């Protein structure tokens, strides 16, 4: 039985102190969240905090659920921006990392460019991108891509370069071509590094998408936050923020799950790092 699926059922199946404490441990974070929201709700009601300053969770829910179609439209637009930007970053950074690690000459020429791009604040770049790429989803995707690709390149490159000398000697003693060395040894070795980069990148992709939507957009949760706060519809803005948090958590967990499913040896393998 998977942990934390349903504490009550778990208790019925194998009742004992072990099962009880396990169920409790799995439920603790959820209980904490529920308690936090309860305190929030009670605090807002008790001190009569106005909605536009800090809305109660119940107000956030009613205001957000009142326009399900519109909220879903904005959510979907943001998910699309995050996904495209993130996938673009993956597609670009893997070959780029391979190139950077392939030879010192290539590394010396590309690396300063990478650092230069990274040192530009992406928020500052966004309005310029709108002028260059037009008022469509392209500038948003590009901002998302720019925000999350750099840490990805760095972690993939670090993984490719941290292959122990013994493995490289094994490749050389078998006269493996560079391509086979990359495919059979370097890339698999880098998988844990790639995934730690992906985890950082997916989190940043959410940030990038919202930044893009702040600057120029008429859709997306970033736009929803801006437009609703402009009219002091703070509960709706909070609703958008909660949805963004949920998107971030779900996407992060998706990356974690992919790693667990397809690269089980990569997950917390100490021997592997040693």
């Amino acid at each position, binding site marked *: 039985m998977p942990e934390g699926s349903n504490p009550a059922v778990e208790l019925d199946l194998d009742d004992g102190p072990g099962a009880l404490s396990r169920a409790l441990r799995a439920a603790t974070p959820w209980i904490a969240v529920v308690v936090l929201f309860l305190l929030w709700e009670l605090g807002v009601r008790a001190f009569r905090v106005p909605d536009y300053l800090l809305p109660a969770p119940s107000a956030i829910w009613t205001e957000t659920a009142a326009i399900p179609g519109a909220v879903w439209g904005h959510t979907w637009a943001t998910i699309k921006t995050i996904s495209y930007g993130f996938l673009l970053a993956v597609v670009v950074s893997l070959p780029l990392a391979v190139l950077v690690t392939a030879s010192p000459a290539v590394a010396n020429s590309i690396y300063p460019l990478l650092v230069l791009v990274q040192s530009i604040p992406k928020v500052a770049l966004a309005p310029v991108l709108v002028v260059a790429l037009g008022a469509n989803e392209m500038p948003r995707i590009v901002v998302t891509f720019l925000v999350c690709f750099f840490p990805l390149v760095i972690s993939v490159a670090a993984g490719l370069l941290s292959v122990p000398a*013994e*493995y490289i*000697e*094994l490749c050389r*003693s*078998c*006269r493996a071509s560079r391509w086979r060395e990359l495919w059979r*040894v370097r890339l*698999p070795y880098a998988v844990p590094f790639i995934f730690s980069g992906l985890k950082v990148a997916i989190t940043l992709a959410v940030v990038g998408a919202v930044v893009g939507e702040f600057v120029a957009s008429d859709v997306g949760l970033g736009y929803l936050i801006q437009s609703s706060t402009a009219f002091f519809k703070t509960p709706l803005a909070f609703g958008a923020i909660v949805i963004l948090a949920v998107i971030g958590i779900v996407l992060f967990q998706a990356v974690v799950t992919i790693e667990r499913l397809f690269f089980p040896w990569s997950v917390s393998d100490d021997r*592997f790092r040693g």
Partner: protein
Amino acid sequence: MIELRGVSQVFRSRDREKVVALHDIALDVAENEFVCIVGPSGCGKSTLLRLVAGLIEPTRGGISVGGVPVTRPREDVGIVFQKPTLLPWASVLDNVLMPLKLMGRPTAQARPRAQELLRMVGLEGFESRLPGELSGGMQQRAAICRALIHDPPILLMDEPFGALDALTREEMTLELLEIWQRRRKTIVFVTHSITEAVLLADKVVVMSARPGRIVQVLDVDVPRPRAFEQEALPAFQRIAGTVRALIFSNRRLPRDA
């Protein structure tokens, strides 16, 4: 089979000082001969092995295998490193097949051979396990299978049992002898265990450190097949004693007793 003539190896340390790892090495290894190289740490025995493997090039001198100068790694050489260096994401079977994959050769026909090799070292039934699930001794056994998968006539072994516990080490030594008896190969085996060297070798090469050079080459006239019981034989004792004396007399360390 293997010839080294006037081989010297000079490394530059980080503070740009020259370190002579090997000085004027001359060595002949005949076909199907089992040669052990013994010496204190830092005598360049691993460097010597890497030179023969073609993984590094000598500063001076020439190395040839089968009359052909060594300029880069050869495919007819199998190498066993001190650490098993199995790829942790690949199954035991895939690890054994790895040299063929790295060489770009087909692996389908080699599967039965890989399985046979694994059976020979007692790893039958572990083919689909990951290296992390195996003990150190089992991992090194798999690594030996990997070195043998393309049936190389030459096997280079760099302290392959150095990281194992004493009991596993003795067991593996006997296993290696059996493998060699069954299918003769030219083996160059680096170790710092004198007993191991005398038990395994036809010829023991004694080296000294700083600079690494060959002090003496001793023929081991202990009859084969060998076993640990032979350690008590006078011939065994005599050679082991000579090797020990050579190593310690060349030591430049202050003596305790």
